[in-house]
């Protein structure tokens, strides 16, 4: 039973979520990119793009299909401050899973930034119809510019979340600390990042082709909670496996290969083995069949309904070595907790 405050919050969010932009008369849509003050009344729309509100953004996130891009500026520490003045930037909150590319919403981009913007977004898309959502702050032209630029670059499905991070939090949306990426990102120390934060996305060494990766379905170990939880867990594993694939595709570190061509082998192995993440390298056979460079296996160890651990391993098909492995503790055997754990893990991988 939700608490009264919770109900009030939920109610408030339903009303608040419908509001886009907030106060101030809407500006006319300029023909080119906006070159004026960033904080000024924005137009009510963008030709070729869809304007979405917090509800619609949440729905896109829940389906795990959108690439969300924050183009807010990142603070850059000046060489000197007033005597006794501290430099203490707060963590920059972003919509969970969002890429934060400061500088991408400027009126004019450097060739570096322009190239980064296109390639990074291209790498993040699952397919040509993946929605790209741009936002910054309320009354902020940077996201308008960035969305317009994405349209000009030929991206098909561009959404503008005009209410910005303030609109998102007012609607009760969760945030995570973001780390800036791209040529407009100040150094990490400058941005006030703590060392344990992962940047919200970094491409592997430029130039070389991305290795291909097969991602096997998530598996559940530990205390499964009994037959009452079977259906719930099966559904959650399927849903979160899809999320993991979408997140990884968006992260752009690997070329994600489809598992379908090896589905028969996967089914056979599943019937023979308790877990594919722990089967003497049987997963590498799947990788070989799919002609993938690496295979990712990930599993959740459920200590209880409250305490869970998500672990991944990436296996190199040729060398049969574990090329990466890491575990993440999380709380709560619920969709949203799993969502966050998966998103966090992929962000951490991008570091």
């Amino acid at each position: 039973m939700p608490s009264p405050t919770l109900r009030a919050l939920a109610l408030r969010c339903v009303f608040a979520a419908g509001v886009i932009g907030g106060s101030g008369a809407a500006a006319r849509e300029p023909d080119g990119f906006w070159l004026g003050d960033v904080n000024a009344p924005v137009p009510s729309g963008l030709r070729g793009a869809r304007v979405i509100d917090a509800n619609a953004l949440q729905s896109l996130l829940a389906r795990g299909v959108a690439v969300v891009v924050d183009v807010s500026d990142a603070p850059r520490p000046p060489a000197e401050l007033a005597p006794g003045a501290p430099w203490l930037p707060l963590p920059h909150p972003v919509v969970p899973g969002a890429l934060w590319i400061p500088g991408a919403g400027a009126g004019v981009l450097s060739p570096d930034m322009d190239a980064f913007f296109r390639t990074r977004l291209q790498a993040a898309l699952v397919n040509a119809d993946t929605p790209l959502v741009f936002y910054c702050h309320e009354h902020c032209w940077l996201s308008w510019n960035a969305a317009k630029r994405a349209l000009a670059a030929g991206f098909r499905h561009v959404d503008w979340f005009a209410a910005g991070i303030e609109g998102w939090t007012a609607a009760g949306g969760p945030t995570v600390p973001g780390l800036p990426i791209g040529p407009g990102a100040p150094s990490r120390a400058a941005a006030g990042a703590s060392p344990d934060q992962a940047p919200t996305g970094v491409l592997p060494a430029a130039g070389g082709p991305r290795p291909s990766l097969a991602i096997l379905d998530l598996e559940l170990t530990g205390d499964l909670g009994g037959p009452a939880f079977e259906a719930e867990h099966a559904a959650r594993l399927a849903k979160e496996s899809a999320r993991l694939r979408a997140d990884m595709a968006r992260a752009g570190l690997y070329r994600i290969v489809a598992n379908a061509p090896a589905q028969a082998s996967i089914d056979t192995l599943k019937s023979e083995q308790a877990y594919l993440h722990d089967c003497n390298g049987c997963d590498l056979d799947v990788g070989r069949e799919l002609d993938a460079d690496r295979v990712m296996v990930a599993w959740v160890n459920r200590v209880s309904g409250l305490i869970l651990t998500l672990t991944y391993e990436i296996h190199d098909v040729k060398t049969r070595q574990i090329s990466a492995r890491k575990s993440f503790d999380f709380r709560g055997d619920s969709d949203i907790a799993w969502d966050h754990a998966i998103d966090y893990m992929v962000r951490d991988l991008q570091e």
Partner: protein
Amino acid sequence: MGLNRGLAAWGLVLCSWIAGARAADEPPSADAEEAARTARWSELQQAIFGARVVHDGSAWLGIDAPQRALDAALVPVSLTMSGERPIQGLYLIIDNNPGPLAGHFLFGPRADPRSLKLRVRVNAYTYIHAVAETSDGELYAVARFVKAAGGCSAPAGADQQLAMQDLGHIKVRMTGPFVAGRPMEAQLMIRHPNFNGMQMDQMTHLYTPALFIRSIDVNFDGTRVLHLDSDISLSSDPVISFGFIAPGKGQLQVLVRDTQDDTFGQSFDVPAPAAPAG
């Protein structure tokens, strides 16, 4: 009918989302947000004032700013001090800005430190604190919450040349009749871009290094009215209103120094000549 059903469904989705999120991840409630703001203020007090005690100054200090500012790069802040306690200085702190200490004013013998107005950049919803330092060295604070965000962003297509035009041009407007020994109000306007390091040069595509006003001195015939140590939270083309007391006819002398160590100075007759000065 269909619309109603749609709306109801949305409400349900969103509410279940929030309920789920709270159970698993506790997104900040109003209380949690307020607690985070209190913690931030404690951290800033520690960073700026060390172990010194900061008292509640709401009995005799006032701070005013729009609750919601559309242009976060130009948020007007107005401070009033009742005058019952002599003060020597004033700190203006924008809690959630990356460089929170926006300015430190020191008042001199020619100051009338009962009112002060300036415009600042606000990067995120924040408390703005004014902390007065009395002549006996005690600190008193008053705060105001401002909903403005993104004000530290540079214009999307900053025209550097235009911004640098008339650099260092200073104007002073005085209000009220001149009576020797009685307080007067002056509005100081300085042409300076106060680059905060986020501006990108359209020609070179490089970020322009921060270039901002580091200090402002205002004297009356060589005796201090005020001294300000400022930083990037001061808006571009700063406008500062303050009170001063001229014991007789003389000159208000303004000296501005920026981070390139360029100095800009100008003097203004008090009382102002009949024709508008500058």
